[in-house]
């Protein structure tokens, strides 16, 4: 009996220590979740229903501004994500699969939009592609980005590059290159091997990259303010209403935006989970 008791205590001791570790982890994780949830809850609690009614129906001018800002924001962010996928997936694949001189420079360049203030990113975009930009002075052809819808798209795409490229690159890196080599010895071209083996296997990562890039585009304001204040996107309009009408109106516009994006991203995460289970 004594032996049994001794054995029992020696077994339970690490278990208790393990539980203490789990409890510590859970407390710290909960703190971080609260750090996200409390501001969201605060925003929702601060909503004034009468202002909300005014913004989305009662006041036709405000309602029309809000509606077109939503359309601009979602259209521009979707387009910027599509552009980033078309251009970003090849770059991510090259960075994941090949070594070449200056590769680390290219990788650092991809991360530049993460490091610089987004107002500066906006200035850089204007100086490069705007009417008085380098491209215009060299070629005589300027992109119509100043205060245009395409300006919003380009600003969103620029700041989202690192999230799209780096996420997809990691996905490609996790796939054994031998799969492609074998596919090629079986008669598949590089393109066929990529589209039938590597890309489907990296699909979860590509979707994750697209979600992150889209989210970054939706939340962008700094670069958009500099490049294309008009047509007003939701973030620009929130800032404008905050300055002109006060906090109540800014919140009335922000709440449906947050709700909508939350619902969309939850749906996308579910889709991503379904793809990974396939």
């Amino acid at each position, binding site marked *: 009996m004594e032996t049994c008791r001794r054995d029992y205590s020696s077994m339970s001791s690490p278990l208790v220590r393990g539980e203490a570790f789990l409890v510590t982890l859970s407390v710290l994780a909960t703190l971080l979740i609260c750090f996200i949830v409390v501001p969201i809850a605060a925003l929702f609690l601060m909503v004034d229903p009468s202002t909300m009614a005014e913004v989305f129906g009662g006041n036709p001018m405000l309602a029309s501004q809000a509606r077109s800002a939503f359309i601009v924001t979602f259209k521009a962010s979707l387009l910027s994500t599509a552009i980033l996928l078309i251009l970003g997936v090849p770059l991510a694949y090259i960075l994941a699969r090949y070594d070449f001189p200056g590769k680390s420079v290219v990788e650092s360049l991809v991360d530049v939009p993460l490091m610089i203030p987004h107002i500066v990113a906006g200035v850089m975009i204007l100086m490069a592609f705007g009417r008085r930009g380098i491209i215009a002075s060299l070629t005589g052809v300027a992109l119509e980005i100043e205060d245009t819808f395409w300006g919003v798209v380009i600003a969103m795409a620029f700041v989202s590059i690192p999230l799209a490229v780096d996420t997809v690159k990691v996905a490609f890196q996790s796939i*054994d290159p*031998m*799969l492609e*080599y*074998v*596919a*090629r*010895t*079986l*008669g*598949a*071209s590089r393109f*066929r091997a990529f589209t*039938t*083996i590597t890309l*489907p*296997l990296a699909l979860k990562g590509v979707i994750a990259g697209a979600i992150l890039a889209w989210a970054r585009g939706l939340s962008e304001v700094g670069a958009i303010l500099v490049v294309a204040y008009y047509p007003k996107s939701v973030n620009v309009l929130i800032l404008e209403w905050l300055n002109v009408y006060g906090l109540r109106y800014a919140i009335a516009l922000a709440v449906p935006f947050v709700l909508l994006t939350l619902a969309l991203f939850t749906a996308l995460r579910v889709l991503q989970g379904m793809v990974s289970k396939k």
Partner: protein
Amino acid sequence: MIVIEDLEVRLGDFRLLVGRLEVRDGEYLMVLGPSGVGKTVLLHTLAGLMKPCRGRILVDGEDITSTPPERRGFALIPQNYALFPNMSAYDNIAYGLRARGVGEGDVRRIVTELADILEIKHLLKRKPNQLSGGEQQRVAIARALAIKPRILLLDEPLANLDPRLRSKAREFLKNLHQELGFTALHVTHNIVDAVYLGKRIAYMEEGKLVAVLRPEEFMESEYAKPYVDDLMPVFRSFRGRG
């Protein structure tokens, strides 16, 4: 016949040198040597995945040294089999045929025939992660044979199997070769695999092909000594106990 002539491949500081190596039609040639000697480099160069800086690879007199892997008809079976995880066993075997534009009717017929021969008919709907090591190996062999390759390049295909499964798989490969008569170049560091399966053994040391011998010649040669010396103490210890 496949002929490798005066081949030199560089990979960083490593250098692979093969003076001349012939693989005759229908032959099962073993390439034996310790780890890190360049056996896989030789296999990947033959498959067209690495470029030699010197030398030629000839198939029936035609120089294919610069031919891309997809047009060589050399099927590679790597050590981990590299089955496509996003496809069923059926689609894995059908992959090369579809890449070559074979019609679905013929694809079905060829896959079913091979599945019969390799006794994997009941596994065709499974994904690679639902197969055991031995089953994966058979699917990989079926996938490679489906395209009727000029040569089958096998990179240590028995290395991941436990000893009992390994001897079964060895026998299976021997029988399969006798039945189908394909040409194969099989790389290994295991002398038992080499002697049991090979019609000839190409022996490599320090990045160089040093000899090509029949198994009985190889066992009599100085090259077999390190392997025999490695095994003898084990036999002696058993004899001592007996």
